[in-house]
């Protein structure tokens, strides 16, 4: 633990010029020292004065319109109960969540109670609109795998609405691929219409196949006769493949759904651009946990153990595009435990969240249970 942060250090820190070790030393200290954290916040303000020396300039008026449009859209979504990212949750196969716990136990709670829908990022608007078809895809896949995944929201979705759109998505995916990928995807489609119409109707299967085709054409070619196997072989790769089908498709659909008869031939590219999310996407706790490279391991603070403090620390975090926690904010929890929770969370590393082939920031809530046995 370093000594208190002095004025100069706090200003240099806020300016962002401290290099590696010095910066980490300050951050380590700040987690435990409230007066210094206050100092730093002040220093941030003082440093902001440099920003005020810029030459006067005004943004174009259209920016205000864009902001207000997004806010209106987000406001409308606020009342929708659906949690679109849960769809992604079904796709991401969670790593084993339980690990043998030493005593005392600090256990990440996977699914925090969803009482804060507020952080719905604008991207979610789009994802929400797409929930229908993505949901269908999930449902279909779960049938195929005979998995007992219960997701009531996805059951309500209308296959009618989803069909053309998913076809569009498949087409978009195929058109974005290399020549080889394109041909193979076409063949895959042909193959599926023949023997097994049910499988072919859900275009995401074809889309998944197209994705796989781009990465591993030979796998697909060998699997052409048995389309269902294509899907299976493609499915486990989805996590690693750059554009996760459901998310990419969701983004595609979101813009497309405004003009509903979105034909496969219509240009896919502008829609993808329109849908690219800019704020962090809101991700359910379980989804985020599944993307952890290693479980979050908090150390039980001695002082908390001695004073028999137990409890749950709830922390809102933003996970950066590189998979690190770039912002954390304690929502609730015993004061003696929050420091340990935050420092464990700061160490957490995630596989980046990918939407439309691009890494996006994700906002989620981490719940850590501190229990003494």
């Amino acid at each position, binding site marked *: 633990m370093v000594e208190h942060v002095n004025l100069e250090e706090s200003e240099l820190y806020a300016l962002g010029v401290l290099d590696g070790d010095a910066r980490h030393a300050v951050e380590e200290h700040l987690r435990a020292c409230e007066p210094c*954290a206050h100092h730093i916040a002040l220093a941030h303000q003082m440093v902001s004065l440099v*920003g005020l*020396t810029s030459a006067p300039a005004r943004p174009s008026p259209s*920016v205000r319109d864009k902001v207000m449009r997004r806010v209106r859209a987000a406001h409308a979504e606020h009342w929708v109960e659906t949690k679109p990212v849960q769809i992604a949750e079904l796709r991401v196969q969670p790593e084993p969540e339980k690990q043998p716990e030493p005593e005392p136990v600090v256990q990440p709670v996977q699914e925090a109670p969803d009482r804060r829908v507020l952080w719905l990022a604008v991207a979610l608007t789009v994802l929400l609109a797409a929930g229908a078809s993505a949901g269908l895809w999930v449902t279909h896949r779960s049938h195929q795998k005979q998995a007992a995944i219960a997701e009531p929201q996805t059951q309500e979705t209308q296959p009618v609405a989803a069909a053309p759109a998913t076809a569009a998505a498949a087409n978009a995916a195929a058109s974005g691929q290399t020549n080889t990928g394109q041909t193979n995807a076409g063949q895959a489609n042909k193959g599926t219409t023949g023997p097994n119409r049910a499988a072919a109707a859900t275009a995401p299967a074809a889309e998944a196949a197209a994705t796989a085709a781009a990465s591993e054409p030979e796998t697909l070619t060998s699997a052409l006769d048995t389309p269902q196997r294509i899907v299976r072989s493609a499915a486990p790769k989805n996590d690693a493949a750059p554009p996760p089908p459901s998310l990419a498709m969701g983004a595609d659909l979101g813009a497309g759904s405004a003009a509903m008869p979105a034909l496969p031939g219509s240009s896919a590219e502008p829609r993808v651009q329109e849908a690219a999310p800019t704020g962090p996407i809101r991700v359910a706790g379980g989804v985020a946990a599944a993307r952890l490279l290693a479980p979050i391991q908090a150390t039980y603070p001695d002082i908390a153990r001695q004073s028999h403090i137990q409890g749950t620390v709830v922390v809102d975090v933003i996970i950066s595009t*590189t998979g690190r926690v770039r912002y954390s904010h304690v929502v609730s929890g015993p004061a003696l435990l929050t420091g340990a929770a935050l420092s464990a969370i700061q160490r957490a590393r995630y596989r980046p969240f990918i939407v439309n082939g691009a890494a996006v920031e994700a906002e989620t809530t981490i719940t850590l249970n501190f229990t003494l046995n």
Partner: protein
Amino acid sequence: MAAADYVFGALEFEPRPATPVVVEEPQVSNVALLERMKAGDQAAFGALYDRYSAMVYPMLLGVLKEPQAAEEVLRDLFVQLWHSAADFDVSRGSLPAWLMVMGRTLAIARLRMAQGHDPEDELQTYPAHAMPSPFDMENEAQTRTVMLALRGAMAELPEEDRQTVELAYFEGLTEAELKWRTGGSREVVNARLLKALKSLIETYGRTRQPGRI
């Protein structure tokens, strides 16, 4: 430090310094607007945008250099403000400070990304919603006055001090990079930075309405 006197309102009962007096219509306070925004009032949010976009945007443009990129970050920043309204403790947080700090963070991250760096290497996390209160500029005229004075102070700085602090703030350079870019030792670089900041802080203190910083 002299500026601290101003910051904490030691001059509370002195008359306002001789800065151009602008007669303002009585306006709604930030706290009131934030409270309304938290309740979902889009008009209040729009008013906050009108109040602060001209304060934040020049800084974003200073970092990113391109209007389009700066406007996109501005948009994201305000959308983020709307979404994080629930977390904003109006009794503790200063909105302009939050906008400036968060805006710079977003802009530098974007800059780093465009340069192919890992933005996380240079950026730090901070309690974005716990910006204490002194830094508060509630209307555009005040903000303009402050910005004018700060530009003046910056122009009066020795060239190397000004250049160093601008590289640090607008380009997000670290000590090592500053050493390389400006040719000074670590101590020299830090001294320049602190000197420039000190000058700005003191100017800010003189410019502000006493007790209302």
